[in-house]
């Protein structure tokens, strides 16, 4: 059975100090007080209003006897005292981000969570800052600006802290923003290294150590030569998703977002280094290998999803792998020391691609589904948000299965000319999404990593836009956009308990051992994000192209839920 490397997934101490739980990104808790036998009795322990009714994509953290949660814009950080009845507020920290930043956030004004290390909470703000806050007092330790909203840059991702560095990247793939990731000193926020994901090798930190596995990723200055002249400067490749870290190899793994603009006719070439994954030396940022999931991306298939680090036996050989449920609809298993693709199997209905050539590493696009100017291309599956968007899956150390919350959507797509105006959207495509085969729009899927095949699926009416976690109690927790928080038997795929929260759920569950020694489960309720912006931003359902075409698939959604922003914490009675 696959297992995460011990150095990246240390024994559980009952806390939950980073959204991904550990550097291997497994989101698995060893707590087992709540199990398949008693979960049906789960009850509300306490609630808390975040005071912000936009999409709550964040994960509530627990460090010691304190819970920390960060809101969407205006990115307020709250600390709750778990030792007292009702978990009253200890303090709040307000970074007061610039209100104008809301205008350059493509897909709701979300934040994907804070991270704790060495007495400090680190997180990003929508207006392009990274902040460090004293976890005990709520005092600001440092606050540095790394992005410029006037060029369309925002920060929405949860940073990763490893050793003495904080890693964060920018959002803005829909604004022609050139993507980067940087390492900041955890001590004072100063930049240790910064790597761009388009442009000349020296900007990308590509040097003699760079050894990509496939020929398509080998060459000099591919970040320039795989673009029309200068197009790489507005080329996207942003880092707004999940980071993993392998302490043994000292490698940081990060995906790169979609190339800009969406209209692929304006950027002939492979558009390196977008829609792929880099392995970088964690200390210097030097690139070690790269693999491009979607060369010359045609459909906004950002490569930013979670990378789950596992060790397993593959065809008789022990391999250090990285598992990635990718936006283009395949679960990839890559050798994380070399970037070789061991397998890429579909987990979504596919019409626009025909598999991955394991010899060349290339995704095979279906030519008839390639967008052309002045032509509507119909029945493209999966859609722009992909088979699966940012919302992270969980690997159970107990069952060896990966639990993938995902979409079941298809779309029509037409590209059109677009002007680059800094600080405004740079998209050039009109989109209409609709439900995929079966008519349901979301799925929670259990996936057998070792055998690269699906095990069971739970269909959901709306896209599943929440993350998932697993526990040693044999459970999977996730939430639905119409507000149900669910506990599922991890082996059988049967829903054992569910609770209807105030708004829809697009957040990341967490579980922890409270100061009383008992296990708790936490989730933020409050719909939004790209899928839920029709409710969070009061969009007009008569325009199917609203929210970049997502509204067409969500016309009935305003009748299913309303806005919100509430923390729910559950326990056994």
């Amino acid at each position: 059975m696959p297992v995460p490397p011990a150095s990246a997934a240390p024994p559980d101490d009952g806390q939950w100090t980073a959204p991904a739980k550990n550097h291997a990104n497994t989101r698995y808790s060893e707590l087992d007080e709540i199990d398949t036998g008693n979960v049906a009795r789960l009850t509300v322990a306490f609630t808390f209003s975040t005071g912000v009714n936009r999409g709550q994509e964040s994960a509530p953290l627990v460090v010691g006897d304190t819970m920390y949660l960060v809101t969407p814009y205006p990115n307020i950080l709250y600390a709750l005292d778990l030792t007292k009845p009702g978990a009253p507020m200890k303090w709040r920290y307000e970074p007061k981000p610039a209100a104008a930043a809301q205008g350059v956030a493509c897909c709701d004004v979300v934040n994907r969570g804070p991270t704790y290390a060495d007495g400090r909470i680190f997180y990003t703000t929508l207006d392009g800052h990274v902040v460090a806050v004293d976890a005990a007092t709520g005092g600001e330790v440092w606050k540095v600006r790394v992005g410029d909203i006037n060029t369309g840059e925002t920060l929405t991702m949860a940073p990763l802290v490893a050793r003495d560095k904080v890693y964060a990247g920018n959002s803005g793939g829909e604004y022609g923003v050139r993507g980067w990731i940087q390492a900041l000193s955890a001590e004072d926020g100063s930049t240790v290294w910064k790597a761009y994901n388009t442009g000349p090798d020296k900007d990308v930190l590509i040097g003699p150590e760079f050894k990509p596995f496939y020929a398509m990723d080998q060459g000099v200055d591919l970040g320039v030569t795989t673009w029309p002249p200068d197009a790489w400067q507005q080329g996207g490749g942003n880092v707004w998703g999940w980071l993993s870290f392998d302490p043994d190899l000292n490698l940081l793994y990060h995906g790169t977002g979609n190339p800009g603009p969406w209209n692929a006719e304006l950027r002939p070439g492979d558009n390196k280094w977008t829609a792929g994954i880099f392995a970088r030396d964690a200390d210097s940022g030097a690139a070690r290998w790269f693999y491009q999931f979607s060369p010359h991306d045609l459909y906004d298939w950002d490569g930013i999803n979670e990378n789950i680090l596992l060790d397993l036996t593959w065809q008789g050989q022990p391999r250090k792998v990285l598992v990635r449920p990718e936006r283009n609809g395949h679960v990839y298993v890559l050798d994380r020391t070399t970037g070789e693709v061991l397998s890429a199997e579909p987990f979504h209905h596919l019409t626009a691609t025909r598999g991955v050539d394991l010899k060349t590493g290339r995704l095979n696009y279906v030519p008839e589904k390639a967008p052309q100017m002045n032509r509507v291309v119909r029945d493209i599956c999966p859609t722009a948000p992909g088979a699966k968007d940012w919302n992270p899956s969980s690997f159970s150390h107990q069952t060896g299965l990966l639990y993938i919350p995902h979409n079941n959507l298809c779309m029509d797509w037409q590209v059109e000319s677009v002007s680059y105006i800094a600080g405004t959207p740079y998209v050039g495509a009109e989109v209409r999404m609709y439900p995929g085969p079966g008519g349901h729009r979301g799925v929670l899927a259990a996936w057998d990593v070792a055998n690269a095949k699906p095990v069971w699926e739970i269909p959901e009416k709306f896209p599943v836009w929440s993350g998932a976690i697993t526990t040693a109690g044999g459970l999977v927790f996730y939430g639905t956009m119409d507000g149900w928080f669910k506990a599922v038997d991890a082996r059988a795929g049967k829903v054992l308990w569910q609770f209807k929260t105030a708004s829809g759920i697009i957040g990341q569950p967490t579980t922890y051992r409270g100061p009383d020694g008992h296990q708790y489960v936490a989730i933020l309720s409050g719909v939004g994000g790209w899928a839920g912006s029709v409710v969070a931003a009061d969009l007009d359902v008569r325009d199917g192209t609203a929210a970049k075409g997502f509204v067409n698939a969500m016309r009935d959604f305003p009748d299913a839920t309303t806005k919100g922003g509430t923390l729910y914490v559950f326990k056994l009675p």
Partner: protein
Amino acid sequence: MRAPYLAPLLIVLCGAGPCQREEREVRPDPAAVAETDERVALSTITAGPAAPVVETSGKGRDYETNAYHLSQGKTLYKWFNCNGCHANGGGDSGPPLMDDKWIYGGSIENIVAAIREGRPNGMPSFRGRIPDPQIWEIAAYVRSMSGNVPAAAAPSRSDSLHARPAENRQTPSPPVPGGSTPPSGLMPE
């Protein structure tokens, strides 16, 4: 100069019955390109019992009722990436423009001001970026998205995939000030 040759033809055609041609100000006098000065309020209340002081020139009506200006506005709406944030009127990162909820006022003068000045929660300021007559054309087109221009003048088709019924088929929805929920108690829109 083709106009002198066309003029007799028009006289002949119009002689057969009533004929009113729409006037097109294709390229405005550069002197008129200076910023217009309309006095509008963002509030429907004022200190005292009367309505707020509003003094408009009436220029807005000339734009709203003119098919050429509305058509130009529709083209410019895409050229200046308005659709990137407001889609085809249904909204995205910016609010919808085809409904009746107007955070900063729904008159053409209010919309011109919003484009020119920007608005605090994300609308960029386009002052100095879009010539003034084109701002008026965009604002007139925005009015057409909610059916608040004459149907005979509103655009009747789009060049891209069918997103929604054409502007000239839009049921009129007169502006209602406000009506949207601010994202947080700390930052009212």
